[in-house]
């Protein structure tokens, strides 16, 4: 009788352990999810549906490329993620937190750079970076080290004392990138990050993107340059007419084809439908 009881107890304990493990695994997966978009729908005033029931997940360590035609809904999705646009349906979670109910926590966990970084022109470069460091509460010594390192890497250290209004487009892009890295975000959201950068800076950015994700953070970025996306991203999503048409591992998606071929195939197939 006692043996039977022990057996039952052992079985129960095993079940509980299994359940716990399963739950931990699920939690682990959830905490690994840097960005989760579920059934996102955004309709603009006037009736145009820019994003239609879009779902995707960006995990820690991912360099996630988001590609599509002009007007496909990439920027709208990105703006919904970073808190610029509200949305009609769906859910967006950044590092496990809901962007609607825990907006400030989400914003603290990420950094965003738009395709045309219009930075506060009335500040000098260093004032801008120091302002960001204050807002994200980066301690004094750490901010000095990070600013020096990133600004020197991007080659803008010597102009940090000048007004942003004197910067070229590329320099602004570099300053925005420096500012985005100042608080070591968990998720970096970039809209066309390579536009306006010189070849050297592009190469540097690619290296930095890899290094950033190796530390366990993630990057979600849109681009039109398919060669870059193919080489850089481990995961890719293609959006057309606001709908996600393909999503997955870059290698699995392309196999023996180029990303360009895949893109043309899926987008034209979608239009034909």
């Amino acid at each position: 009788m006692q043996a039977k009881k022990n057996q039952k107890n052992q079985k129960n304990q095993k079940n509980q352990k299994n359940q716990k493990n399963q739950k931990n695994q699920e939690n682990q997966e959830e905490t690994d999810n840097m960005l989760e978009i579920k059934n996102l729908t955004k309709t603009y005033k006037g009736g145009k549906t820019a994003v239609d029931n879009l779902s995707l997940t960006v995990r820690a360590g991912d360099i996630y490329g988001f590609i599509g035609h002009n007007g496909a809904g990439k920027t709208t999705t990105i703006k919904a993620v970073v808190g610029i646009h509200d949305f009609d349906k769906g859910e967006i979670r950044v590092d496990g937190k809901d962007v609607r109910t825990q907006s400030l926590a989400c914003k603290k966990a990420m950094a965003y750079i738009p395709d045309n970084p219009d930075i506060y022109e009335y500040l000098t470069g260093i004032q801008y970076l120091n302002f960001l460091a204050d807002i994200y509460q980066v301690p004094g010594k750490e901010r000095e080290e990070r600013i020096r390192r990133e600004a020197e890497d991007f080659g803008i250290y010597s102009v940090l004392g000048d007004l942003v209004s004197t910067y070229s487009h590329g320099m602004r892009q570099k300053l925005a990138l420096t500012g985005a890295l100042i608080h070591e975000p968990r998720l970096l959201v970039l809209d066309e990050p390579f536009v306006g950068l010189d070849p050297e800076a592009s190469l540097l950015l690619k290296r930095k993107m890899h290094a950033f994700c190796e530390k366990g953070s993630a990057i979600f970025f849109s681009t039109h340059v398919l060669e870059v996306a193919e080489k850089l991203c481990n995961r890719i999503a293609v959006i057309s007419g606001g709908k996600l048409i393909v999503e997955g591992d870059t290698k699995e998606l392309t196999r023996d084809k180029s990303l360009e071929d895949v893109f043309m195939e899926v987008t034209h197939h979608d239009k034909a439908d």
Partner: protein
Amino acid sequence: MTRQIRLLTKLSLYGMFGFNEFRHTRDGKKKLRFCLMGALWVFLILMLAGYVGLTSYGLTAIGMGYFVPAVLGMLVSLVTFFFTMTKAGPVLFDQRSYEKQVALPVEAKSIIVSRFLSMYLTDMLLGLVVMLPGMAVYGVAEKPGLTFYLYGFFVILFLPLLPLTAASVVGAVIAGIAGRWRRGNLASILLTMIFVCVILVGSMSLGSLDESQLGAMMEEMALQLEQQIGRLYPPAIWISEAMVSGKAAWLLLFLGVSLGCFLIFLEILGRFYGRVCQMLSAREARGNYQMERLQAKSVMRSLVEREWRRYFASSVYVVNTLTGELMMVLLAVGVALAGREAVDRLLGLPGAVDRTLPVLLGAMPVMMPLTACSLSMEGKSWWMTQTLPVSRRELIWSKVNLQLIVALPFYLVSEVALIVALRPGLAEAVWLLAVPAAYILFGARTGIAVNEKFPVFDWDSEVKVVKQGASAFVMVVIGLVSAAVPIIALFVLEGMQILVYAFTAGVLLLLTWLMDRIGRKKLSPPYRLD
């Protein structure tokens, strides 16, 4: 060239007042907002026309109808001069839009003329709103001949040219001088403020005619008025000579001088325009930065510092929003130095200072608080502010705090001057301090609330936000109403001054608190303005 001018003017007019947006937007709410703004404009134009009509009637009633065109012409010219002076740099010499336009196959002269024309058209509208009611009242009262209306038509057409040219020269000179200094914007702000003070004091001196002479010495008074107008703006007398006396020579003199000055300026400017634009927009870049110790600050302090830098980076923004504070100091210093009666005469309201001084003081800065366009001034950088991890409340209060910091020295100077000069009793002193303070706080918070309703982020020139923005306009109306109600009450309810002061301050503070509470609930984070 005419075609080029027409097309370029059309282009700049598209951006003005949001007509094009109204035409093409599918957003019903936006359309409704435009309609409401239109209705408000019509209301204000009618108010202005009514005021002009009454002033003209007053002048004709006391036998000084001769001065109606002169006074109104001078009023339009002064207002045109004042507004163009601050616009000259950012509109006429705007390098960015010049670069966009000069790449097109158009002549530099076409660009200049088109920019002048867009400013001219808005100024001419002001001329119409002011001159037409005055002419109508004079016409009914004095029954002048056809030449009065014919000459009046030409006067309205040419009236903005001279102040427009003079203000462009002054504006360009100020921008040029300021550009040579390291702190160019500050220099530009100071120089423009000095000019504003000169204009304000100059135009106020017109109202300080000795009323004891009224009736008994009408001729002497007319002479005094003629001399004062002549000193301040001689062409105004030419207008009266032409329209009232029907002297064609004076009309030709006015038209010739206006057009001549404009064409000479155009000719000179045409030769150096590109260089002037470049010179005025040139920014110093040193490229020799060495890192010093970076100080960590609190979020609020950092936000306020950013607001401070934004504010003083724009001379148009500062000059327009600081005028109220400046007028508050002028009023206080005027009362302290010249006495209550003298200021009463200036205001044209006998007993105004005695009865309504705290309200008058407070009403000045509330007309155009810097917060009324501080959200819009974020412009294309608005994405940055939206994505910062700061709450809506922090953002709003950083802007309100800046308004309070900016207003504080003006408030203190005004209060100290009045308390030292008037030596009020305790109760009077308390309300003299409390009512303007309540107005300043109310204006600062209301400005943000209004700007949240009428934000404009897509602009190329700060002028579009500061001078043409709906929120700035609505704020003037709110300021006028918030001042007019207690002033009327103070005149009607004699002997209940303290009660009216207390009620006014209480209502203003209550409204400020309510705005803060309701606004917080309605638009809790994420802070968006779709």
